[in-house]
């Protein structure tokens, strides 16, 4: 029955990914905390599972001409270089430490998301207020 849990973990990650939020940020802790997969293996699984998903979605985006190739070119070159170095670094770090660093990363990401959501909702209520005032006039 273990396979069912892996499908459900993927479902949760895909669900968020499909909504444009970081699916992997959730998939990795589900795999390690709930299913007992090692941190390295969970990270590897997330990277590799993402590739076919990404290709499918990109077909649609390219067709809709939504890609900014200039920003892409400038960003991707340093990203690949650093990723290769960081990948080797992660592979050499022991499981316990990598998991701890990942936890800290989650706290930072979660806090930024929370702040972004608060700013978003503040902007929204301001808009609604302006709209109400407008209606009063």
């Amino acid at each position: 029955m273990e396979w069912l849990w892996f499908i459900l973990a993927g479902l949760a990650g895909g669900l968020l990914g499909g909504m444009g939020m970081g699916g992997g940020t959730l998939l990795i802790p589900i795999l390690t905390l709930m299913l007992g997969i090692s941190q390295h293996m969970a990270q590897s699984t997330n990277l590799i599972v993402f590739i076919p998903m990404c290709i499918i979605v990109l077909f649609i985006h390219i067709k809709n001409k939504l890609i900014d190739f200039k920003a892409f070119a400038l960003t991707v070159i340093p990203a690949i270089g650093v990723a290769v170095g960081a990948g080797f670094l992660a592979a050499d770090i022991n499981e316990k430490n990598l998991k701890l660093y990942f936890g800290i990363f989650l706290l930072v990401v979660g806090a930024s998301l929370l702040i972004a959501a608060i700013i978003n909702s503040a902007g929204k209520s301001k808009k609604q207020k302006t709209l109400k005032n407008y209606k009063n006039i």
Partner: protein
Amino acid sequence: MEESRKTTFKTVALSLGAGILIGFANGFFGGGGGMICVPLLLLIGLSTKRAHATAMLVILPVSIASGIIYITKGFFDLNTMLYVLAGCIAGGIIGAVLLKKLNVLVTQYLFALVVIAAGIRIVFF
């Protein structure tokens, strides 16, 4: 429609800086690059849709590069990956459909809290 953006020193520096952060998150943590990429592309001046689409294209080759390193280091389990992938594809479709029906803000709050909870669990317990 094509957006016209000026290439300034600031946009170039931001793009390169974003690339470094994305590469580090992707290679070291095996994910999370997209979450860094989208806000930085927004900062450069891309619209929300273009930022999301461009982020996907940036993350693809980066994930392939990182993935190759993880595989060569022996972190590969085909069975797990296939099951997770099957769930992911189904989840991705459901997520894309739900996006139109759900309150995005509530979902953002929930997601942020779940990520923080997972972080607390890992770091402190």
